[in-house]
């Protein structure tokens, strides 16, 4: 079982180096995507995509924060999506 502990330690190190490199990678495809595109690509992965008309601005603020945590969205993805939903509702 020592092996498993070493393996989990290894996984944690890999994960955090990912996070670090992820944070430092400034430009990537997501920065070029619009809020509408990110909404179209991300909000149907687990369930049907809700129409922007479903909620008010304030409700979208809460719902998208909930989804940011649930779906592990980055800050910029969540911000662009919520901005899109608020202009299209």
């Amino acid at each position, binding site marked *: *079982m020592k092996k*498993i*502990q070493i*393996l*989990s330690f290894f*996984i*944690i190190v*890999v*994960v955090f180096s*990912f*996070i670090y*490199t*992820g*944070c430092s*990678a400034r430009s*990537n*495809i*997501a920065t070029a995507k619009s809020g509408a595109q990110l909404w179209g*690509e*991300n909000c*149907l*992965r*687990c*369930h*049907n*995509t*809700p*129409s922007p008309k*479903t909620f008010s*601005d*304030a*409700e979208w*603020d*809460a*719902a998208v*924060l*909930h989804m*940011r*945590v*649930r*779906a*592990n*969205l*980055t*800050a*910029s*993805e969540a911000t662009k999506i919520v901005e899109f939903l608020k202009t299209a509702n």
Partner: protein
Amino acid sequence: MKVQFLIYFSMSIFLFSPRQADAQEVQSTDEIQKLREQIEQLKNESAAHKQGTSKFLLRGYAHSGLQVTDESFSFIGGAFNPIFIYKQSDRLLFESELEFELEDGNLGIGLEYANMSYLLSKNLTLRAGKFLVPFGIFVPNLHPAWINRFPTAPLGVGHDGIVPSNDIGVELRGGSYLGNLKINYSVYAVNGSQLNDGQEDAEEGGILHHAVFPDNNRGKTIGGRLGFFPFSNSSLELGVSGMYGTVGAKSSKLEDINALHYAFDLSFVKSLPSLSSVLDLKAQYSGTKVDEAAYPDPEDPTNFVTFDNNSSAWFAQVSIRPALIDNKFFRNLEFAARYSTLKTPEGAAWEVDETQIDLGVNYWIDWRTLLKFSYRISSSAEEDHVEPEHDEIAGNAFFVHWALGF
């Protein structure tokens, strides 16, 4: 000429007459005053409804249905799950889900989750409390009745399955980009599962129980999940999860017994314009390995037996919905199929080797409300296998369910 001059002269007198201008001015100042008052009134009204920084959503879902088997023809389910979401600030979120369910004629109340998340950075969130364990995809992402394409969970997953569902602890999670590769990650420490030592009921020796409180030992279970999106449009996600910790009770013979849970998952969702449809594929393999231990022999509890305490479960499901066609009825129809299996240890009293195929047709009333019609074909490799506790997972059955998210 004179006549023309006279006309121009009288027109200019008419147009620029001071009395006329006065009257207009009075009228427009009146209107401006009225508008000012209206604006002031609107300002006051909107100030009364001004949003604070703290925002709140009360949502949830409900479901129930009809189950027809060889033995029964009954309405089942009847669950109502309210979900409370509080956005305290841009960084702080609280989420909680209760479950009100009818169980054997009584109302059962469960706390599915109650936790707070604090956004530490753009890519990292700290979560603490009772949460859905990010192990595979079914429990955290697909279990709500309005998301699950079938009336039941796949074999081995869900409240009494071999796969961990919810637990109390702390977690770091987030998403990021490795160049152009999108990834997400989670690491957590929770109380972990508890091993049944068979002392109370020898037939249950070796079973792992999840989400039981309080913890039976001091050792914490650690785990994590790593997800990758190989395509830049996020249509495909591949994930690997692991969870490891002590499961034996402190100061018991089994106190050093550990268990390893691992899972691989896949999610693929894509619009197929050529078929005017949306295709949704989901799959998950989960395995559990418990250290070797001896449990009371159900035939003669003074004796001890041992077996390889390994279990596994996997499911794959596909659904297709012609969502891109014009016909309103057909674009709300969805066809779904799922294959799932569960294998528990050979030689254990709770040995099961089951397979289920679920075939379904769903009708979507809105994005979170649907009617599910499905037929389940079950088969078991064991002739004399122990009937699972819940008749929900035994035998062929036909279901009609409705689920409503609100």
